[in-house]
């Protein structure tokens, strides 16, 4: 008997039910980036611990619960899972490890109105969120990640053709699928031209398209310049009710303004965004961000969103009207930068090209675009 291999989707289903994850990577890698979920117990015992003939290693492992073993690429997990299987544990392992988990996307329908649907696509390992806004057989995709087949499949399921693709800003933490998705579908790719210096990619300057209308209904998509995370950041307002906020406003805080090396200057822009641009929007507006920083931000329905009013109420920084204090707060709390972000930015501008394998490697690791402001 050998332990069963499972894929990321199967793991996610088990996570919804409740499962024990035994992560056998070394403690540093585990601390840096691990699988999280509301209903799971996570244990970290490095795989090489199982090479010693020491029965004590099994003590923390529950005999009665289902265990899934995880490592970086799958082989060490397989070894440990087989050892546990021999001992009679109920065990399986994630076949390609964290590498596979980093490429897993989970779609949730978050808005279902008579005239349109909004699907939030959650890339759990990275805390990245992207969106399909579908109306009358046409779809707009916002902030698609690199694995464009996910969006093609979803659009097909919804009987919609992808007509518009928007990147709310130039991403620094993951490789965008925007340009490729537009090319594959014949859709138009929009991004602010200030984000695309020296870019060879084909795109429509988003600043020249304040309104998008598609579908037979008057679905109104308004691009609001919301600089702060990057100078060309926009948020997309759908029918005055849903704000796809990119990396500007999060459920738990604001975007980090430091990735251009001009933290204080960009923090000033973020201030204007929060207190001038977004200020007139109603408390009822539902914010749908491009990121989350903590699994606590995923609500009961499996979606990451919050009313603007709740975010304002919960978030001290959204009420810090003193410009100087605000700047201090956001410029100084950014923490470690996303791994490989300079190279990722160049790829997203189309200046650097990498193989899919190299892309997977560059994106390996946690997301660090959201900052938590308590």
């Amino acid at each position, binding site marked *: 008997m050998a332990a069963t291999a499972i894929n990321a989707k199967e793991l996610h289903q088990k996570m919804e039910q409740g499962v024990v994850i035994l992560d056998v990577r*070394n403690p540093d890698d585990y601390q840096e980036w691990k699988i999280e979920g509301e209903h799971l117990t996570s244990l970290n015992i*490095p*795989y*090489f611990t199982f090479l010693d003939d020491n029965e004590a290693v099994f003590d923390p492992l529950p005999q009665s619960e289902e265990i899934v073993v995880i490592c970086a690429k799958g082989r060490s997990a397989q070894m440990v899972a087989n050892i546990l299987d021999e001992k009679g544990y109920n065990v399986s392992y994630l076949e390609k490890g964290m590498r596979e988990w980093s490429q897993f996307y989970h779609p949730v329908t978050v808005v279902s109105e008579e005239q349109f649907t909004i699907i939030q696509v959650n890339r759990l390992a990275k805390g990245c969120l992207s969106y399909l806004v579908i109306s009358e057989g046409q779809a707009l995709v916002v902030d698609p990640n690199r694995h464009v087949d996910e969006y093609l499949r979803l659009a097909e399921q919804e009987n919609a053709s992808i007509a518009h693709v928007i990147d709310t800003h130039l991403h620094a933490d993951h490789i965008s699928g925007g340009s490729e998705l537009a090319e594959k579908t014949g859709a138009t790719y929009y991004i602010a031209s200030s984000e695309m210096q020296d870019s060879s990619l084909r795109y429509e300057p988003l600043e020249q398209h304040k309104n998008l209308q598609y579908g037979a209904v008057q679905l109104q998509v308004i691009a609001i310049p919301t600089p702060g995370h990057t100078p060309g950041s926009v948020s997309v307002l759908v029918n005055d009710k849903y704000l796809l906020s990119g990396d500007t406003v999060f459920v738990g805080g604001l975007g980090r303004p430091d990735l251009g090396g001009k933290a204080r200057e960009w923090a000033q822009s973020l201030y204007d965004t929060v207190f001038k641009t977004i200020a007139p929007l109603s408390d009822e507006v539902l914010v749908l961000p491009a990121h989350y920083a903590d699994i606590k931000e995923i609500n009961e329905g499996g979606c990451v969103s919050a009313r603007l009013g709740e975010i304002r109420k919960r978030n001290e920084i959204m009420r810090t009207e003193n410009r100087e204090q605000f700047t201090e707060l956001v410029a100084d709390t950014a923490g470690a930068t996303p791994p490989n972000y300079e190279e990722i930015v160049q790829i997203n501008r189309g200046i650097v090209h990498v193989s899919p394998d190299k892309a997977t490697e560059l994106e390996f690791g946690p997301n660090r675009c959201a900052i938590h402001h308590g």
Partner: protein
Amino acid sequence: MKADIVVDAKGLSCPMPIVRAKKAMDGLQRGQIMELETTDKGALNDFQAWARQNHHELLKAEEDNGVIRFLVKKG
């Protein structure tokens, strides 16, 4: 510094480099030295953690042209 045992783990992927390292270490006396070469990029963090956990001393870890060479003193 001369190693008492040399292990070639080039081309092997995780978990094999450490499986080989452990086997080699088992045959050494305290204070003796193992040299191991691997091409597995993930090995660096793993080796540090493994040495720490087993009280071996990682004397050296150097990379040259995609090959990582470890010198480990048995503790």
